[in-house]
């Protein structure tokens, strides 16, 4: 099967940010995303698996440029004050026109 290279951007964030992150990634060029419930620990002293809601994991397969734009946006708006973590994985997809 013919595949092309894309980037998978994975974001873990406190669930409060879910709607904002969805808006952000769509505005910055993502054509789709998937969200799952997760819990975890990180640098934030206060576990973000708060008693109220869990964290969300957002995965979106995008082009190199979009991945970078979203990462820049996260860094500018969320990294300082919110419990947010993100990483980029190289992936291959069929149907390049979709991502």
């Amino acid at each position: 099967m013919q595949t092309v290279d894309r980037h998978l951007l994975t974001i873990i964030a406190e669930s409060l940010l879910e709607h904002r992150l969805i808006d952000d990634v769509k505005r910055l060029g993502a054509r789709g995303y998937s969200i799952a419930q997760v819990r975890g620990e990180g640098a934030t002293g206060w576990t973000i698996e708060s008693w109220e809601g869990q964290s969300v994991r957002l995965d979106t397969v995008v082009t190199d440029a979009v991945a970078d734009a979203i990462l820049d946006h996260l860094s500018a708006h969320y990294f300082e004050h919110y419990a947010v973590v993100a990483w980029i994985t190289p992936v291959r997809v069929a149907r390049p026109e979709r991502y």
Partner: protein
Amino acid sequence: MLASAVVDNLLSAPVVAFIVAATFTLLGADVRLPEGLYGILSSYLLLAIGIKGGRGLGEATIDELWAPLLAAGALGVATPLIAYVLLRRAGRLDRVNGAGVAAHYGSVSAVTYTVVIGLLESRGEGYEAFLTGLLAILEVIGIVVALSIARSSAGASYGEAILEVIRGRSISMLLAGLAIGLVVGSERLASVDPLFVGLFQGVLTLFLLEMGVLAAQRLRNAGTFGLRIIALAVVIPLVNGLLGAAAGAAAGLSTGGVTVLATLAASASYIAAPAAVRIALPAADPGLSITAALGVTFPFNIIIGVSVYAAYAEWLT
């Protein structure tokens, strides 16, 4: 009187469940309810409280309503300001954290409300049923006022935070319940009473079991924030509760009604406020507020506080 109220409350199933769960958790035993149940129970409680309030509201006249409404509005403004001043002066918090924590104390806790209602009902003491409506109002105003203090630093997200509170599940569920109760009316509600009335105390007991676990987990961290904050988490409710009792008495509420309003003023939000503060004041430490509101004030209120507020009410009416 106070002693007997304390005992009545202390030995009620919900409060015992809370204490048992907290104790078990501190001892390392796992009594957490399965994931997912927390949300279900809290939605049920908010709806059931709302329905009850809507029923009561349907039987109230405008004449009875305006004075308590005014009192609630005044408390919504005064309680977060009092909390803010105490937290900055005595608690030595900076402006952002002071406002953040104050928003929790300005808002209210629906569960604390249900505990005081339970106490009144077990003692056969009446209260104005429409007070539930004030719950929704108080929940919002206190947060708005507290966030306004730190507004300049909050910027664009201020409005977003307020919207988040108003549209959020916590208030929406309560209002949906109010609407249902009001429209359907007491008589037709009989068919749903087995669920929303019959099971209420039992569900509250389950919920407080879970809250006991959460409060104990928070309590464990309390050390990190220093004794000042812990002490304020007891002092603020005692002060705000007295103010609430005075406002209730001035508004001409019954002894039971004054107890309820005092408890609302004294209680601290741990559902609506955290979300709003997180949005409007991201630089505020969420651990600080939750530990104070959930780890200290909530247990204090449901175990001892409600009886104190009942005593305030007794004394002022």
